[in-house]
């Protein structure tokens, strides 16, 4: 029989490997089962590679605009091969880093496909892990005291829009493109769709975004999604909202065409390729859930706020449980789950304190509720809004688009939500996150001294604006 493990983790993505590290810090014997590469979607197919490409796109655009800054460059051109090579090298570096962390934490990494087995004679509760290897070696069985499911998610498609990797792609395939298409149809104007739209338009691709509901980024505050639409449109992205794509009309012949119903009219859209970004589905199949009492609802594993499933010794974190499908959410969930296993009594995560970022250009970031959500909850709100164009540092940067919007509770000054669109906002949202965690009010943010000149001044101004006391507005 194999080693006695305190914890077996299915999936080596952000949720899984961070949980593994925390578990080893807490003295648990940990087995991590991952068929692909440690780091998961985030490192290999999501956050990191896509942001690497976005950064290249941004540099390319800014270089084209360099003459405004008095820097003349001749013949700016894009070497897409190098773009991909740079991305690959970043991923590789980080991958090596994670592998080193596994070694350091004495975490046993099993490179195979793990499945949970039901109760057996020697293991009266389900959760024995059987690991299958691609090379046909005999399965390894481990009987851990606890199991953490962190199997993540994969891109969804629409029924009828079969992913072929050539014409119709998800973000997985798009990341591996060797050459850029002339034009692209992006189906789905959510976070992933908008990031790709921003990147590809900067790379010079002709981008059309088809969104089913009446606005892009429907989970963001309405002001933010309007501003994003305006700014991206200015850069050449074509947005079609309330567009009901009809998958049965898809044709693929040296390009794709598809019909969509827009305001009762049927319009045919054509492009060289299509990117489907309609959300991600949890990886709950073929991991042995049926051998347990774990409840799967709407495709996601159900857990309590300590991430315990119906089987109290089996936990699940990350995309596989739905909610905010974000790497930093998964890693934090993993930490909470492991601390619960180790009886450390962690604080449950409050979703209202979790920052959500879109790495388009300009960037978008938020923490807390949108104005619409706040009103739906019947809160009486007051709002402070401040534009980047009134912030000196933003003029210096040459990036004056966007604003910060702070929503506070009229009754008690509670911070309800902070929404940002503009340069470097994904780096600045942390201040709002900290304010939420510390239960700060808007006027306390306003009373915080922000360095001048800096982009972060906008936080102070927007916070003061909540009570109409902004200085420069």
């Amino acid at each position, binding site marked *: 029989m194999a080693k006695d493990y305190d914890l077996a983790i299915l999936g080596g993505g952000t949720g899984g490997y961070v949980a593994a590290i925390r578990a080893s810090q807490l003295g648990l014997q940990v087995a991590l089962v991952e068929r692909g590469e440690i780091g998961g979607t985030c490192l290999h197919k999501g956050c990191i590679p896509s942001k690497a490409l976005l950064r290249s796109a941004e540099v390319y655009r800014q270089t084209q605009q360099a003459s405004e800054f008095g820097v003349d460059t001749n013949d700016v051109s894009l070497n897409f091969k190098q773009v991909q090579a740079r991305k690959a090298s970043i991923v590789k570096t980080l991958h090596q880093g994670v592998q080193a962390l596994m070694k350091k934490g004495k975490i046993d990494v099993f490179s195979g496909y793990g499945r949970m087995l*039901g109760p057996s*004679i020697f293991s009266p509760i389900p959760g024995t892990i059987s690991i299958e290897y691609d090379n046909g070696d005999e399965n390894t069985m481990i009987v851990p005291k606890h199991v953490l499911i962190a199997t993540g998610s994969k891109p969804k498609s629409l029924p009828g829009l079969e992913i072929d990797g050539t014409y119709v792609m998800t973000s997985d395939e798009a990341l591996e493109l060797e050459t850029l298409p002339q034009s692209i149809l992006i189906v789905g104007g959510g976070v992933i769709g908008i990031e790709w739209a921003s990147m590809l338009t900067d790379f010079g691709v002709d981008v059309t975004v088809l969104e089913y509901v009446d606005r892009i980024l429907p989970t963001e505050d309405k002001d933010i999604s309007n501003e994003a639409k305006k700014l991206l449109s200015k850069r050449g992205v074509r947005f079609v909202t309330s567009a009901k794509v009809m998958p049965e009309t898809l044709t693929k012949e040296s390009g794709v065409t598809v019909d969509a119903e827009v305001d009762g009219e049927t319009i045919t859209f054509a492009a060289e390729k299509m990117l489907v970004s309609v959300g991600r589905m949890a990886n709950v199949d073929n991991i042995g859930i049926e051998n347990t*009492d774990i409840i799967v609802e709407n495709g996601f594993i159900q857990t309590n706020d300590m991430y315990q499933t119906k089987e109290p010794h089996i936990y699940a974190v990350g995309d596989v449980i739905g909610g905010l499908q974000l790497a930093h959410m998964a890693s934090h969930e993993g930490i909470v789950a492991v601390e619960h296993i180790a009886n450390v009594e962690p604080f449950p995560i409050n979703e209202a304190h979790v920052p959500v970022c879109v790495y388009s250009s300009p960037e978008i970031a938020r923490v807390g509720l949108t104005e619409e959500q706040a009103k739906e909850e019947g809160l009486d709100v007051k709002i402070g809004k401040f534009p980047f164009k009134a912030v000196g540092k933003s003029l210096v940067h040459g990036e004056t688009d966007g604003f910060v919007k702070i929503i506070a509770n009229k009754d008690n000054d509670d911070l309800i939500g902070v929404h940002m669109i503009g340069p470097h906002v994904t780096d600045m949202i942390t201040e709002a996150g900290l304010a939420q965690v510390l239960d700060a009010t808007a006027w306390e943010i306003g009373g915080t001294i922000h360095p001048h000149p800096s982009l972060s001044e906008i936080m102070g101004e927007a916070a003061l604006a909540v009570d109409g006391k902004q200085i420069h507005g």
Partner: protein
Amino acid sequence: MPVMSYIQAVTTALKEEMQRDENVFILGEDVGKKGGVFRATDGLYDEFGDARVLDTPLAESAIAGVGIGAAMYGKRPVAEMQFADFIMPAVNQIISEAARIRYRSNNDWTCPITIRAPYGGGVHGALYHSQSVEAVFANQPGLKIVMPSTPYDVKGLLKAAIRDNDPVLFFEHKRAYRLLKGDVPEEDYVLPIGKADVKREGTDITVITYGLCVNFALQAAEKLAEEGIDAHILDLRTIYPLDQEAIIEAAKKTGKVLLVTEDNKEGSIIGEVAAIISEHCLFDLDAPIQRLAGPDIPAMPYAPTMEKFFMINPDKVEKAMRDLAEF
């Protein structure tokens, strides 16, 4: 007090009885050198030798028959059936011989044999490693059938079974072996055969069950307690002959009775329990007597989903208990 698993309690009881009385010996398949397929007799061969821990051929009727003969001769055999499912070849020995000896010989002969067998499903054992067989033996006067629910009960009842002067069938739930752990006193103690045990006092509903289902009922009761439903749980401990007095008392206490068994529903022990209650408690009943049991299908399915469908679990018990409480 040491915490032991259910199976450790089995081993401990066997060991202590063998130390106490040299007439006690063990026989069965793989019980010796291997220490039993479940490791129930682990270490006993080393301590007591091959004369007292006998590996037998794969012949259950011989295991029972040899044991019965030895018992009539004055020994205290503890025969192990590797799985309760395999007891069938020994049925003639057990029913026609062991159960009848005292009566047939007008009290001249007795048959103090204990026959242990692991029963029950939920361990992916499928057809021949999951069955509940107690009902087969439960209308044979002369036999006693004990089915413990906790490590504490295992030790006390197995000792009592070995010391009993009549044949005792001792069925242990194989899923309980490593699932259930509990305090087991180090000192020598026996628990009375033929007496049921109140495992939880309550006022709203009465659950009467035995074996692993007791644990399920206790789990469900804790959850229901949060909803304000207070369950009274009676563990039969000995399922033949039944402790009528305790059953009647428990049924009268709340008037709402749920009977639980993992066995197939029709013809199971709990049908007899229901009969006792309806004979004696009509005017105290506040709801129809409810039975929660396995379906009437020939054997435990292999597919995990189907096995789950067959098996009793805390959720099913909880649902049935809530349903009855709300009646």
